[in-house]
């Protein structure tokens, strides 16, 4: 009974997503827009500016340090929330 609406929603979503996928650039094209805008600066300047050869680490910890800091605090919050949900008197 629940399967018919699910199939209808899936067919509509599949049509929309495949229709949108026609507009994407070719897979693994070196000149796709995502590879041209911000990342060349990270790739070319990472050794010169940070002395770290692994550019994932340098972008993660230095150029986008704010992102990683609040992500660490999200993990911390998750640990505290699990503790608050489960460690409590049984009567609740």
């Amino acid at each position, binding site marked *: 009974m629940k399967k018919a609406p699910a199939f209808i929603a899936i067919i509509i979503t599949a049509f929309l997503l495949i229709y949108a996928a026609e507009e994407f650039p070719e897979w693994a094209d070196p000149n796709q827009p995502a590879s041209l805008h911000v990342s060349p600066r990270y790739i070319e300047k990472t050794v*010169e*500016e*940070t*002395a*770290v*050869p*692994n550019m*994932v*680490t*340098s972008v*993660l*910890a*230095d150029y986008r*340090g*704010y992102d*990683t*800091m609040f992500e*660490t*605090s999200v*993990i*911390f919050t*998750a*640990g*505290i929330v*699990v*503790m608050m*949900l*489960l*460690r*409590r008197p*049984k009567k609740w």
Partner: protein
Amino acid sequence: MVREFEDVIIQTLCRFLVPFIQLYSLYVFAHGHSSPGGGFQGGCVMAAAFVLIFIAYDLNEAKRRFGEKALLIFCCLGVFIYAGTGWACLLLGSNFLDYGFLSKVLPTDPVKARYYGMAMIELGVQIAVMAVMVSIFLDLVTRGEHEEILEEKGA
């Protein structure tokens, strides 16, 4: 996991395996700058070592090695190391998390200071991820009732 199996093969193997897993975790953390790896991966591998202790031994042994209070302290310590590095940069006259100014206190040039600043915050991420993963696993595996289960066992 909560109650002990008393299986000699599993316990001996896990006791031999745990130090090597922890050493590998420290290797992953320390070489995160020049090879794949870093704080998250090292923390998850370190957490897997403690999960192995949980599976091989019982709850009592695991809590004796890594109690709940120590877990909470390590959780807070990881986030504190990360944010404290940012505040150190701020106090030295730079922007938040701009590690170049750490060269005023470290005996290096600004470029190498960024290298060591990154190592510092990866240490914070490793400690926080390890403690949080072990804490979530401990709460999930006992339904949050560590004390009741320990009393039931008479330990």
